[in-house]
Structure formats: C-alpha cells, structure tokens
C-alpha cells in the first residue's frame, strides 16, 4: 500500500515536471516579445531590457526552466511581472474561489447523476429509463458555455433569482452566487455520471454474487445499495477524477462569464498581459491539484474495494 502510494507520488512529480517543461516550450513558441507586450509599445529599450532581466527572459530557455525548478523546490514561484508580488501569494488568494466552484460542480454532477443512474438501472427498459437517458444525453451534448449564458439570461437577468456577477461575501451569499456557475460546469457531468453508473450497475447485477444474495431472500433495496452500488460506483469515481480536470479548464470561462475571482480568471488575465510567472504558477498549481484529485480517487477506490487493496499490497 505504502509502496503504491510512493510510486503514485513519484509519478505525480514526474507529471508536474513534464507539464512545466511543456509550458516553457509553449511560452517560448508564442510570437512577440513578452516584455514588449507587457510594457506597451512606447516603453524605452532600457525599461524592456530591465523587465526581461527581472523575469529571467534574457536567459536561454533551459536555464529559465532550471531556475524555475530550483526555486520551486524552495517553494518560490517567482514574482508577478507587473506588481512584483510573490506569485504564490496571489495564487493562494485566488485558489479558494476556484475550489468552491469545482466542489460545487462535482456536487451538481454527483447527486443527481447517482440518483438518475440508479433510477434508470432499477427501471431498465421502462419509460423512466428512457426519460433519464434522454435527459443525460441532452445535458451531455450542450456545451457548458451555452448553458452558462442561458442560465445567466434566464435566472439572473429575466427572473433575477441569482446575482449575475461576483463571488460574494459571507457564507450564504457565496453559496447563492455559486449556484449558477456550478450548474454551468457540472450539468453535463450529470449525464456522464448517470450513464456510466447505469451501465456499471446493470453489469454488476449480472454477477453471480447478486444471484446468491437473491437466493437468500435479501431485499432488492439491500442488494442494490449494499451489494451492488458499492462496486458499481468505482468506475464513476475514476471518471469523476478526470472530470475535475475538465471542470478546472471550464472554470476559466465560467469565472469570466460570471465575473468571479479565481485561478481561471487569473490565468486568463495573465496570458493577456504576458505575465508569464503568474501563468506558470497557475498552471503548476492546477496540475498539482488535478494529480492530487486523481490520487485521492484511487485511494477512495482502494478503500471501497478490498480486491484493489489486495493487489496493491501484493
């Protein structure tokens, strides 16, 4: 188990290192001098040179990368190219709002998704099954930004049930303002969760152990919730781990559309202004977060399934 954990952690570090390298390569490939863009066309040559030196752009790309890794090990992500603030502090100030958004989206995906998936599996082939299948497929096929814009139009502007912009102050206000963006990001995943869960429940229902449980007269509810769902939920957990990645990328536009602070909004602004230290830091942070979420998903699976624990121990 511990060995497995260490292996996974090593893999995670490798993933993060590779992502950073790719990011440096990409920044390098973007046309235009970042210092020029950041400072504007009328800045003097000296000013531009000083700026390049400050964020290390005057050095070869491999040296830049090496420096970045070294300071990363010290927990230093560099400084904001414009304000000079430490990038880490900026990121940490923006992180909570994005975390709430992702958590909200997962909740939006999981609660109705599990409900619909279970319902469809229990009433397989019936009208209920067909209705849930239509719902699932439709939410899956509408792009999230379209959902976001319609949610805004209907619920904020027309009905005025929810404020259109901002993250809010205080718990209730924050929750209130979290509803629409979470819906926008999570809605499609209701469909994925419901479809995957339905399929794995039906598959598990055919397993001989379910027949054994029935042969002892256990109730169908007991069989579904104690004997089947525990196993059938596992693929859904894996998929949700990957889903968090999609939600993180979706957070960029959701934070822009709903004018919320957050990592997505931060990255967007930083790219526009060629504020590369912030871009790098934000990408690094989201990558780490994504990798950790997937590690967590695997741990939850190992916790739920003794066979996985057994394989890991062996």
């Amino acid at each position, binding site marked *: 188990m511990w060995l497995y954990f260490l292996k996974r952690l090593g893999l995670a570090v490798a993933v993060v290192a590779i992502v950073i390298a790719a990011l440096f390569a990409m920044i390098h490939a973007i046309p235009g001098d970042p210092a020029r863009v950041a400072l504007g066309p009328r800045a003097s040559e000296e000013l531009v040179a000083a700026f390049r030196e400050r964020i290390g752009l005057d050095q070869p790309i491999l040296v830049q990368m090496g420096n970045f890794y070294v300071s990363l090990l010290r927990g230093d992500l560099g400084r904001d190219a414009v304000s000079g603030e430490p990038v880490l502090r900026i990121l940490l100030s923006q992180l909570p709002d994005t975390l709430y958004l992702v958590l909200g989206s997962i909740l939006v995906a999981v609660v109705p998704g599990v409900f619909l998936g279970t319902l469809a599996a229990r009433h397989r082939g019936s009208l209920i099954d067909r209705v849930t299948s239509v719902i699932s497929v439709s939410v899956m096929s509408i792009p999230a930004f379209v959902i976001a814009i319609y949610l805004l139009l209907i619920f904020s502007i027309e009905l005025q049930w929810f404020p259109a912009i901002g993250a809010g102050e205080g718990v209730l206000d924050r929750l209130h303002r979290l509803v629409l963006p979470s819906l926008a990001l999570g809605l499609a995943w209701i469909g994925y969760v419901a479809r995957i869960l339905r399929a794995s429940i039906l598959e598990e229902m055919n397993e001989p*152990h379910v*027949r054994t449980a029935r*042969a*002892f007269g*256990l109730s169908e509810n007991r069989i579904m919730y104690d004997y089947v769902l525990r*196993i059938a939920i596992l693929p859904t957990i894996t998929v949700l781990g990957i889903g968090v990645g999609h939600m993180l990328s979706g957070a960029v536009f959701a934070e822009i559309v709903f004018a919320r602070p957050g990592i997505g909004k931060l990255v967007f602004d930083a790219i526009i202004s060629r504020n590369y230290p912030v871009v790098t830091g934000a990408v690094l942070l989201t990558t780490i977060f994504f990798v950790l979420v997937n590690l967590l998903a695997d741990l939850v699976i190992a916790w739920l399934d*003794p066979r996985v624990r057994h394989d890991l121990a062996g």
Partner: protein
Amino acid sequence: MTRNTALSIRDLSISYDTPEGRLRAIREVSFDVARGGITGLVGESGCGKSTLMSAILGLLDGAAIVESGEIWLGETDLLTLSRGEMRRLLGDRIGAVFQDPMRSLNPVLTIGRQMTDIQFRHRLSRRTKRERAIEMLHKVRIPDPAARLDRYPHELSGGMRQRVAIAMALMAEPDLLVADEPTTALDATLEMRTIELLRELQQEIGCAIVFITHHLGVVSELCDDTVIMYAGEVVEAGPTRALFEAPRHPYTDLLFACDPARIRERSRHLPTIPGTVPGLIDVPPGCVFAERCPERFAPCGRLHPRPLRVRGSEAVRCHLHDPEVTS
C-alpha cells in the same frame, strides 16, 4: 405428490426468448425428490440443469418463459407464488449453492458481513449472529472460523469459499438444498471431502438435496436417486443403485459404458458420445437422442417417446421399453 416428497417437479417446460427464436431449454420435466433424500441431476453442458435450478429458486432470467408445469415444495406450488412470497422461502426453507465459488460471494464484503446479512429474518443481536456464523463455519470444518469472518472472499482458497457457501446455504436448516455443480471447480480430493461433508451435514439437518453435477462418480457416491437429462428432457430417472446397475435408456447406457473405470474416481466430465446434441430452437419431432442413438429404429425419428415406468427405473423416455411401439 406424497407426504414423503420434499420437492416434486411436474411437466415443467421453460423457454428462452432469443433473437433466433424461442429456445426450448426444458421440456416436460418431471421428477420427485424424497424428503431427506439426495437426488443427483446429471447431464451434458447446456441440457438445462441450471435453468431448472433457477426455476426452483424463482430466479429465472428475464428472457425465460415458464410454458407449463408445477414445482411443489411440500404443499405449495412455487410457480404460483408472488416474488415477495418466494423471497420469504428463499434462504429459509430453500437453500442454494452455486456453481462458481470464485464469483458467487460478494467480493467487497467480508464473509462475516455476508453471513450476518442473511440472518435478517432473526431478531438477534449482531454478536449472536456472528456467533452463529462462527458455529456454522466450524461445522463445515473451516479452521479458525472467528478470524475468517473478517476476511474477504478473495482471501480464501476455492475449496474454503465453497464451504463458506455451503455453510451459508445450510445455516437456516432448510427443507431443500439445491446445489449447482458445487464441486466442479475443486480438485478430486477436495471434491470427495466436500461431498462427505455435505452428506454429514445433510444427515444432521435432514434436508433434501438436488445435486447438479457432470460427475458420475459423485452421483454414485452421494445420491439416493438419479435423474439423467439430455437436451432439455429427463431421459431416465430412478434409484441410483438400480440405475447404475441396469441403465434402461441407451443414453444412460452409453454414459456408463464409455469408461466404467472413470466413473469411480477421477473423471471430471461426462464421457463423450459421437454426434451432436439437437438444437433447442427447432427441437426434432421424435426422440431427442435419436440422432446419436446406436439402437434407433423406425419410430424414433418421428414419434416423441413418452415417460414409462420400467422395473428398476422410475421413468424412461425410450421406445425400446414401450410395448405399444415395439409390438
């Protein structure tokens, strides 16, 4: 239906709806299982043994259709019961052990959890239920039963898992135990030990057993009565001793004659007989075994044989024994 019968199956026919048409898996099957007796159900793969078992347990696949027949457990025809009524009998008056010990226990729940769950009918404390489970594991000779309760199925050997399954099935001391090839996955020595164990427990509890198997040696060892199935029909049924000494149906005859030495001990499968089993979607009009039968004669191809009582056997479906056909 006499008072000495635990289970009586009458004229049971079951089909499956398949894309190719109606597959007539079981046709006009009748036999009795004596109270406290052991009946062996033998037949090649696909002859309908598992279908019959599912029918007894009321756990037929959704595609299955009961065309006709009755399944009497004591005074009740199981086929007339609602799902809820059937559920009340399962795990109480009827116990079941399934074919694949590897996959017939829940993989993510401990043995103890599964053994306490099935005692849901009893208003006992968790502790008492655990103690009863330990006692039962002890009875099936599982060493250190208390520690095994906290194990998961994959942590036990195949033989041990099958004994857990037997312990679970017999925990409620049912009137009837249905066991579908419970020993097929085990090696020969383990198989014999499991058989002895079953026999002992059966004598202690006094339940009747329907024992489904491929293995003729096991039948001769364990079963009081034997039912031979072929392509969905009972071709011959009767007391094991008489049937083994003087088989009446050419199919039974061939099974035993193929290799008598193998019947005693190690043969894992039924001997092979040349020819193929008829398709069950378009069942031939005559005798189902006619195509492979060395003794076939004129009526076999067109006339379906009726079950006959012949000395030594309770029922034989063969024209050779039918005076009306042979004369």
